[in-house]
């Protein structure tokens, strides 16, 4: 009996030491609250993989996912409240036009993820086929609208050439009800939904016609100047997570199931459709020409009143080039 008591005390002591130890280890990590811009989703697999495989922890970082709005995340980074956020390229330009000091440091989506989707029977196989057609957009705002105008502009079309209407986020239903001939949506979402229903479709990917900057990681000028090591550590860890996701999507999806509540196997096609949007010769690299093109589209749309004074200051590849 006494032996049992000693064992119990020993076990308790061991437990306390272990707990203390883990607390110390956790205390060494710098917690980074990361605004993601959207709800928990398998599309964020590279982030989940980087956390789960300890890449962030090895860099001394503990990531706290924050699924708030993109604009809020950008404002917090711009105000110096947070060091990083997941934000799209056009948002960076719109923010810098308002003197928000944010800088894009890693291009996660190498291809702009917007597409124009139509039923095969509508025979819309190239952008010129959109002339005079009824096209439904979620609204005349946001990434869908920017991508749509980018596609038209790159193909010598104007908004007046197409009979566009705003249909809210009801693209699949509206298209199936034949209320419009094509809809604008996300390349890794609406086409998958329609194909799952057995619909024969045509997809015009915006990225096939114009290179615009999509989602990536931003930081602020203060962090960039005062703590470049932090930015480098973050970039390195995420690039490892991204590479692992591309190498083994099935494993990445299984990891995502820990982070996305109630995620069954049905959304694996979304992750599979996302992979080509992330692939690149050098992951994370952002092409200066894509920034000029994005700016041109925003100017044509009237979202920017004038060109950004210092466009090159909106992004940097220094951390990608120095990544391990």
């Amino acid at each position, binding site marked *: 009996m006494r032996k049992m008591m000693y064992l119990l005390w020993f076990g308790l002591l061991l437990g306390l030491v272990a707990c203390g130890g883990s607390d110390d280890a956790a205390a060494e990590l710098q917690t980074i609250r990361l605004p993601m811009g959207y709800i928990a989703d398998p599309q964020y697999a590279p982030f989940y993989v980087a956390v789960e495989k300890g890449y962030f922890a090895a860099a001394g970082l503990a990531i706290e996912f924050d699924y708030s709005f993109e*604009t809020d995340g*950008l*404002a917090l980074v*711009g*105000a110096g409240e947070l060091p990083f956020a997941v934000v799209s390229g056009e*948002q960076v330009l*719109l*923010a810098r*036009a*308002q*003197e*928000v000091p944010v800088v894009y440091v890693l291009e996660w989506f190498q291809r702009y993820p917007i597409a124009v989707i139509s039923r095969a029977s509508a025979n819309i196989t190239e952008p010129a086929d959109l002339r005079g057609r009824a096209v439904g957009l979620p*609204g*005349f*705002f*946001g990434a869908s609208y920017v991508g749509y105008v980018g596609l038209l502009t790159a193909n010598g079309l104007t908004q007046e050439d197409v009979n566009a209407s*705003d249909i*809210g986020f*009801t693209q699949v239903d509206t298209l199936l009800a034949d209320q419009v001939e094509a809809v604008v949506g996300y390349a890794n979402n609406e086409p998958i939904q329609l194909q799952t229903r057995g619909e024969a479709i045509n997809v015009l990917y915006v990225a096939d016609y114009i290179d615009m900057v999509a989602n990536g990681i931003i930081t602020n000028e203060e962090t960039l100047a005062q703590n470049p090591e932090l930015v480098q550590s973050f970039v390195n860890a995420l690039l490892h997570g991204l590479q692992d996701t591309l190498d083994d999507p099935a494993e990445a999806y299984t990891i995502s199931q820990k982070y996305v509540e109630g995620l069954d196997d049905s959304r694996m096609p979304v992750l599979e459709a996302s992979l080509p949007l992330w692939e690149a010769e050098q992951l994370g690299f952002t092409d200066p020409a894509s920034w000029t093109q994005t700016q041109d589209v925003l100017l044509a749309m009237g*979202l920017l009143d004038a060109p950004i004074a210092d466009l090159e200051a909106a992004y940097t590849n220094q951390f990608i080039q120095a990544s391990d």
Partner: protein
Amino acid sequence: MPGRWRLQPTWLTFLLSFLCLLLAWQLLVLWGEYDRFLLPGPLDVARQFGVVWQDGRLLKHSWITFSEVLPGLLLGILIATPLGYLLSKSSLAERLISPYLIASQAIPIIAIAPLLTIWVQSTYWSRVLVSVLVVFFPILINVVAGLRSVPSEMYELLRSLRATRWQIFRKLELPAALPVVLAGLKVGATLSVIGALVGEFVQPKSDGLGFLLITARYQFKTDLVFVVIITLGLMALGLYGVVSGLERWLLRWRKALL
């Protein structure tokens, strides 16, 4: 009150308080050294106001929002008033309907607004419906409270005079309940603006002050966000003023009695 100085809510005092508010706001921006995208000063907002006024966007979007607010408020009144009358008169109706009405108020409007869009299949009417749902309850509650505030001896008096149901309503219930009902209407008038805006947020499409607000946030034009907020405030203030004017006119007999 002769002989005692009393501050009158005149235009002058309102103007003074408004100027003080603007000054405090500008000083806060200057001392706090806030970036324009975090907290624009009143001058930035005034400048932006001029821009959207001149290019016609403010008027266009304000008109669209107002065209949702007004039917929302009127429909809310049209539904809440007879239902309130029924609930105040019939204990059976109250027992049957009240639990559902009270429980419905626990449902966040933002949760059902997207469903309304799907059910109604009209952006305009789904926005109006959100406005109706928001204004409905305070008006209903005040109609019930107003009618129940009528003293029972007054009913007995009128019945003893062989008054018809219509006469009781016209001569007793309506004048007695009107002050409370109009107070509810004031609350409803301001809430109707919020309702329409919630509807526009859920279904932004391409018009209305909600759309302008979303666009302004998308473009990080915080000064434009302030312009929209101020316009919404003015719209609510205007509706409140109309109901207050209506109240003064409808209840002028009370002043004559005093």
